C-alpha cells in the first residue's frame, strides 16, 4: 500500500513472565516513539497485517515510516473475575485458546487467524455475533497505549464495571492507529455457551428476528438467512422448531472478491439496501440482520462504488476494506470532524501516527 519501511522494531520477544511483558510494555513502545520525536518519521503499528488496506492508505513522509509491533503474551487471566489482560500483539486465536481451557471466551470473532487483539481493536471490526453480544468496544475494559508524543497512557480500568473518568477505551477502538500505539488490553470474558448450532431458513429475516429470542447471529444473503443459536440445547431445538429452521451445520460463506467493503446502514434499512445491492452486477453480500452491517465483495471497482452509493441512499456509508484503490476509504466527510481533528491534534501533535489513515 505504498508504505516505505525504513525499519521494523519488535518489542523484546517474551518467553515467560508477565512482569517482563509489563516492563516491555512500559519501556519499549514508549521509548521507540519518543526516540523518533522530532525526526518527522511516521509510526505505524502493525499487528497481523490483516486489515492494512482498510480505510485510506498511509501517506508516508519523505523521512520514512517506522513499523512497531506491540508486545505479545498473556499478562493475566482472572478466571473468577472473567477478565483477561494481554499484550496487544497477541493473536486473538491464542487468547481464545487460553480462555477456552476455562470454558470462557471473549467475543472477538476475528476473521483471520493472524489478527492480533490490538489490531482488531484499532480496526474496530466487530464480530458476526454482534447481534447478541454487542460491538467489540463493549468488551474492552482497559487499554494502555503510547501517544504520538511518546507518553504511555492507561484508559479505563481493570474491573467489569467502571465509570471513573473519560472513556478512552471506546475512543481507541476503530481509531486505526491514529491516536496511539495500543500496547496492552484488558478484555471482558463470558462463559462459553453450552451449545451452539447453525441453521438456515428461507423466511424473511425480519420475521425470523421477531420469532426468535436472542439469536447470536442472523446473516442474510438475500436468499437464505443463516441463524446461529447458542444456549441450552433444549431451548435451541425448541426455537428452531417453532421458527421452522433447518439445521445447516455450518456458518455461511463469507463474500469474497478482489474489491471488498463493509456497509453500515440503520438495521431497518437493510431490506432497501439488499434490493439495491442485488441490482449491481458481480456483487455478493452478507447482511447482519438487526445490526445493519453488510459485508460486500465485488468483482470490479465500479461495482463497489455502486455499492457505496447504495449505502448512502439508505442513510449509511461504506468502508473500503480491500482493493478498489481508486475509491476513497470512507467516501464522505467524517461527522463531527472539527472535534475529531482536535482529538487527533491532542493525541498526536506532530501527526506521526498512521498519517493519512483517516480523512481528517
Amino acid at each position, binding site marked *: 500500500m505504498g508504505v516505505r519501511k525504513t525499519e521494523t522494531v519488535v518489542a523484546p520477544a517474551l518467553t515467560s513472565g508477565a512482569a517482563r511483558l509489563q516492563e516491555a510494555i512500559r519501556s519499549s513502545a514508549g521509548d521507540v516513539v519518543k526516540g523518533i520525536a522530532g525526526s518527522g518519521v511516521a509510526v505505524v503499528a502493525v499487528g497481523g497485517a490483516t486489515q492494512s488496506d482498510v480505510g485510506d492508505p498511509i501517506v508516508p513522509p519523505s523521512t520514512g515510516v517506522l513499523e512497531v509491533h506491540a508486545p505479545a503474551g498473556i499478562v493475566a487471566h482472572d478466571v473468577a473475575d472473567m*477478565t483477561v489482560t494481554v499484550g496487544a500483539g497477541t493473536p486473538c486465536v491464542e487468547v481464545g485458546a487460553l480462555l477456552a481451557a476455562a470454558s470462557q471466551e471473549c467475543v472477538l470473532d476475528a476473521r483471520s487467524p493472524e489478527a492480533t487483539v490490538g489490531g482488531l481493536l484499532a480496526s474496530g471490526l466487530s464480530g458476526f455475533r454482534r447481534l447478541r453480544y454487542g460491538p467489540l468496544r463493549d468488551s474492552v475494559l482497559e487499554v494502555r497505549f503510547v501517544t504520538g508524543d511518546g507518553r504511555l497512557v492507561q484508559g479505563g480500568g481493570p474491573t467489569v464495571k467502571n465509570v*471513573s473518568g473519560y472513556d478512552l477505551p471506546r475512543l481507541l477502538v476503530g481509531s486505526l492507529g491514529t491516536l496511539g500505539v495500543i500496547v496492552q488490553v484488558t478484555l471482558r470474558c463470558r462463559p462459553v455457551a453450552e451449545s451452539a448450532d447453525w441453521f438456515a431458513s428461507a423466511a424473511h429475516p425480519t420475521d425470523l428476528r421477531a420469532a426468535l429470542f436472542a439469536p447470536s447471529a442472523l446473516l442474510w444473503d438475500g436468499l437464505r438467512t443463516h441463524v446461529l443459536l447458542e444456549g441450552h440445547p433444549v431451548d435451541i431445538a425448541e426455537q428452531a422448531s417453532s421458527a421452522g429452521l433447518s439445521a445447516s451445520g455450518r456458518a455461511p460463506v463469507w463474500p469474497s472478491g478482489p474489491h471488498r467493503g463493509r456497509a*453500515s446502514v440503520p438495521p431497518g434499512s437493510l431490506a432497501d439496501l439488499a434490493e439495491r445491492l442485488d441490482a449491481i452486477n458481480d456483487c455478493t453480500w452478507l447482511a447482519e440482520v438487526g445490526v445493519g452491517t453488510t459485508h460486500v465483495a465485488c468483482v470490479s471497482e465500479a461495482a463497489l462504488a455502486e455499492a457505496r452509493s447504495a449505502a448512502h441512499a439508505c442513510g449509511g456509508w461504506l468502508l473500503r476494506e480491500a482493493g478498489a484503490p481508486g475509491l476513497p476509504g470512507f467516501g464522505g466527510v467524517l461527522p463531527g470532524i472539527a*472535534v475529531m481533528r482536535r482529538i487527533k491534534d491532542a*493525541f498526536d501533535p506532530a501527526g506521526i501516527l498512521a498519517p493519512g489513515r483517516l480523512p481528517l
Partner: protein
Amino acid sequence: MRAYCAYVGILRSIADESLLADLRAALGREGASAHPLELELHARDAGVSNGRAGAVCWPRSGAEVAAAVRVACAHGRSFVPRGSGTGLAGGAVPVGEPLVIVTTRLNRVLDVDARARIAWVEPGVLNLDLSRSVAHLGLHYAPDPSSQQACTIGGNIATNAGGPHCLAQGVTATHVLAVQAVLPDGSVAMLGGPAPDSPGYDLRGCFVGSEGTMGIATRIAVRLTPNPPCIATLLLDFISVEDAAAAVSGIIAAGVVPAALEMMDAEITRAVEDFVGAGYPRDAAAVLLVELDGLPAGVAAQCDLVRQVGRSNGAREVRVAADEAERALLWKGRKSAFGAIARIAPDYYLHDAVVPRTRLVDVLRSIYAIAAEQELTMMNVFHAGDGNLHPLIVFDRRHHGVWERVREAGDAILDACIAAGGVLSGEHGIGLEKRDRMPLLFSPDDLDAQARLRDAFDPNGVANPAKVLPAGSRCGEMGSAPDGTWV
C-alpha cells in the same frame, strides 16, 4: 475594600441582569430566572455538596438548549446541564455561578420503532417512563438505576448509569445508539447514529459518561430490549456475609450470567423489611436477590445451579418467586433500600465503588471495620455480580463532629477499594465528589490524556468545568472548587 467589593457586586449584578435578559429573549419570560429561591433550589443535587448557581433556565427544545448555551458563552459564563438532579456525585452542582440548564421540559418520547427496537427520546424523559411507554410492545429500556422513577435519560447518559440489570445487559453506553448534542460552543452535532458504526472516532462513546462536560444531549436514540420469555427471581438467605459472597463467586464460576445479582446485608435487609414488608428474612446476615432470564430450559437449568451453589455455601433458604406479584415485591424491597433508611436517621452518605468480585469478602470486612472505627452506622447493598459496592453511612448531621467522621470513613472506604484492585466509581460518576481522588487511579499522563479528550470537545472550558478532572490535569487549566462547595 468594602467599597471595592460593593463595586464588584454591582458589576456582577449588572452582568447577571444582562444574562437574564438575553436568556429570556431566547427562551421566553418563563424560561429563565435568577430568583434567589430558584438559585437555591438548583444549588445541589442528591449528594452532599452545595454550590451556587448564577441563573437557571428551562429550554423546551433542542434549539432553545443551543440558544441557552450560546447566551452563556456570549456572557463568558460556564454552564451545567441538569436533569432531575438525582445525581449523587455532585455532577449537577453549580460551581462558579454558572448557568444551570435544566432539561426536564424536553420530556417527549419522539418516536418508537418496534421492529427495529429503537426509540428516539428527549433527554428529560424519565427512565422508568420510557420503559412504561414501550411495555405494550413487549419491550423495555434495560438500564434500571434505583432512582429510575425520578432520573432522566439525559442524566443516565451523563453518568453512564447502571442498575441491577446491567450485569447481563450492559450499562447505558451499550444502549445508546446516537446522541444529538449541543456542543459547548453552541453548535449542534449528531454523535453516532442508528447505523452500527460511525466513520472516524467514537464520539458518541466519548460523550456517554462525560458528566455534562462535553455538551448537552437534546435527542437520543436508544436501543429497546425485548422482554425475556422466562424470568426466575430467587431470594437466598445466609447466616454470614462471607457465605453470601462465596455464593456469588460460585454462581459466576458455574458459568451462570444472571440478569441481576444483588446482595443486601443484615442492617439494610431489616430496614427494608420494616419499610416495605417484602418478605425478606429479618434475621439473615445477608440476602442475595438473583434474577435469571431467557428461554425456559436455560432458566430452569440455571435456577437449579443457583440453588445448588446457594445450598453448598450455607444458604438457609432458597425462595423462588411464585408469580409476577411476588417478583415485584422482592424487587420493591431491593429498590426501596435507600428510601428505607430515612426511617433510621435523617442523613445518609451513599458510596459507590467497584472491586473485583473475588475481593468482595476482604473489602467488606475492611469497610465494616472502618465504620466501627469511626463509630458510624453503616449498611451495605450492592450489585454483587459486578463487584459494585454501595456502602451506606447513616447519621444525623446535627451530632457534633459526625460529618468529619463520615468523610474520613468515606475516604478510607475508597482507599480500601482501590487497594483491592478496584476503581473509583461504578455508576454514580466522578462529578465533584471524587474529582480530587482521580490521582489514586490515574497517573499525571493518564489524566492529561483525559483532559486532552475533554478539551477537544470543550476548548474553552465552559461545560461543567470543575468536574471529573482535578485542577491542573492539563497545562494551563485553571480553577478549583471555590470554598463553600462542600457541606
